[in-house]
């Protein structure tokens, strides 16, 4: 093996793939039943980069040669960068050898589009097939579906991959047209629709015939880039909600745009990455998927952007003070989940523990409730509780004053001079 050449390719093709933020290796249930190599179930983050993101999969492009010229993408045709391409065998060897050393959970393979969609997709599928059949590899495989690839290839991809994803790239069709004139959203939605139906159909078959093959057991996901185009949070989250509902997506990833290219259509090169906004979008996404919130409770026409200073659950609570205080010892779990500072695990503990006796502040604290936020919104087995008639805005100020935000707070001081 030519170590220098492989190293160079790996550097180029890992660097080009890193703006794809999807990292999940969970949700599959591939067992190691053939005494082969690996399994895939709950997902493990094997390392973390210095920017704090999880490294779970060997995430690379097969090649960064591309016939498209999308403004936001480092690999765009008109960008003057070093190009490289892996052979099928090289990707297989890297995957197997990294996996055997417990560096990774599996492979995340994407690619620039060379020649045409099917030609590219066929190469990706060939790698997954080789890993599964020749190397008895049962680790996690995430393949990108190339927009415009044929149903036959998508079907084959589903037989070998755990997860498939098509990136929507921009939250709206208008955004896509602006930055990627060669692409159209219909090409992206078509394979998503095919996969959705195929996954449903295969799951039904699996129920009837135990030996029916598993098909993309970890489902499909997508990614949208945020901050490159002028969409507001309401548009982004509505779009996410639409795809969750209509395409059974497992995840929508939000990728804060990293300015890598000078282009008049894009934010300037010295613009900072919208990391806080990205974080708030993920929090809102979690509220939709796990906490029973509807998208228009989080953002709507009068509230088109998420508040960057506070998390969206707290934001909802201070806009809906009439719903509080919640009595921890009586309220149903759906309402407890809506209290700022109470997460899924603490809510579960509260509901279990209160069967044994009424809970007080001390016990709630021990269970992991963040009282600095929750105390304004709940009562429990104690005569002490927030008696002042605080407005939502008062509460926001109190919480911001006492909390150490993980981000630099925007200045909250509002001087009432006049």
């Amino acid at each position, binding site marked *: 093996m030519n170590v220098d050449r492989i190293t160079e390719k*790996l550097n180029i093709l890992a660097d080009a793939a890193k703006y794809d933020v999807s990292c999940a290796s969970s949700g599959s249930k591939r067992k190691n039943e053939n005494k082969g190599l690996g399994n895939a179930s709950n997902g493990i983050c094997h390392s973390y980069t210095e920017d704090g993101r999880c490294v779970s999969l060997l995430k690379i492009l097969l090649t960064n040669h591309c016939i498209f010229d999308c403004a936001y993408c480092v690999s765009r045709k008109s960008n003057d960068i070093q190009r490289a391409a892996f052979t099928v065998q090289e990707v297989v060897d890297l995957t197997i050898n990294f996996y055997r050393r417990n560096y990774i959970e599996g492979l995340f393979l994407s690619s620039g589009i060379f020649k045409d969609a099917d030609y590219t997709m066929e190469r990706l599928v060939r790698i997954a097939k080789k890993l599964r059949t020749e190397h008895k590899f049962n680790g996690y495989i995430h393949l990108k579906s190339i927009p415009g690839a044929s149903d036959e290839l998508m079907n084959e991809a589903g037989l070998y991959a755990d997860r498939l994803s098509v990136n929507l790239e921009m939250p709206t069709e208008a955004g896509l047209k602006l930055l990627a004139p060669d692409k159209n959203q219909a090409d992206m939605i078509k394979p998503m629709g095919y996969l959705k139906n195929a996954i449903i159909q295969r799951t039904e078959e699996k129920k009837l015939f135990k030996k029916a093959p598993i098909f993309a057991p970890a489902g499909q996901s997508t990614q949208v880039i945020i901050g490159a185009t002028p969409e507001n949070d309401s548009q982004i989250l509505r779009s996410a909600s639409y795809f969750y509902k209509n395409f059974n997506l497992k995840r929508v990833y939000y990728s804060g745009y990293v300015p890598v290219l000078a282009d008049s259509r894009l934010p300037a090169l010295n613009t900072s990455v919208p990391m806080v906004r990205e974080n708030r979008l993920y929090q809102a996404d979690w509220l939709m998927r796990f906490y029973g919130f509807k998208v228009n409770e989080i953002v709507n026409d009068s509230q088109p952007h998420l508040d960057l200073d506070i998390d969206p659950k707290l934001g909802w609570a201070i806009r809906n003070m009439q719903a509080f205080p919640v009595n921890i010892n009586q309220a149903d779990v759906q309402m407890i989940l809506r209290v700022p500072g109470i997460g899924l695990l603490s809510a579960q503990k509260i509901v279990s523990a209160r069967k044994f006796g009424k809970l007080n502040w001390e016990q709630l604290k021990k269970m992991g409730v963040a009282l600095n936020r929750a105390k304004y919104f709940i009562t429990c087995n104690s005569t002490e509780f927030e008696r002042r008639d605080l407005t939502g805005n008062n509460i926001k100020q109190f919480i911001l004053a006492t909390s150490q935000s993980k981000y630099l707070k925007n200045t909250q001081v509002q001087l009432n001079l006049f």
Partner: protein
Amino acid sequence: MMTTLIYDGTFEGLLTSVFEVYDRKLNLVNLQKTGQDNNALFEDKLQVITDDERANRVLKGLKQKISSMGLQRLYAAHLAEMDGEENSLLGYIRYAFDAGQNIEENYGNKFVMRISEMVRMVRREKHRMEAFVRFQKLKDETFYAAIEPDFNVLPLLIRHFKSRYADQKWIIYDIRRKYGIYYNLHDTQYISLDFANVSKPGDIVAAFTEDEEIYQHLWKNYFTSVNIPSRKNTRLHVRHIPKRYWKHLTEKI
């Protein structure tokens, strides 16, 4: 009067101690492991002699009181060998016996909550080891990894690594507790290694296969390539991988 019970640190010893508490109708009890006694003057001291029959009787009784899942959690909390937590374990078991109903989910109780925290700490450490083990391929095709977990989680790792790496021989060695697991393609067994002849850990490099160095090099390169400098967030990085784990992580050495 406070009675101090001293036991040998085994699970059977813990259960025997429970037997003593009920047999002698003790009320105020301080449980300690052998070797950590503090010679307080005004207390009764009792050396618990581990007795399998008594331990089994307690175990049988305990199974009537808590679920098998609850018992597994208790065992995992014990296995962790956290210093000074003997009384949490004993307190939990006594509470389980004394209560009229199953108390596993009564998180308002301090013992139940503490055991739940301990289990969470142990599981997190177990999960970290599943992530942070870095195998190095030796000339005889065995994959070797050294770890130094905060708690004694090695026994909890067997199932995961055995099902994942079914087709390669591997050793995971806890160098702090001086024992390891060896998988020989069929079964796993506990082993202890004699490092007397290896003066420096670097000497073990001589036993690596030729391509070991290449893949370590490629992995380090990969790790650097996927970083996005404009998103640098050292605090988050260190929170995810605390520094004490770095010395066994190929990409952080």
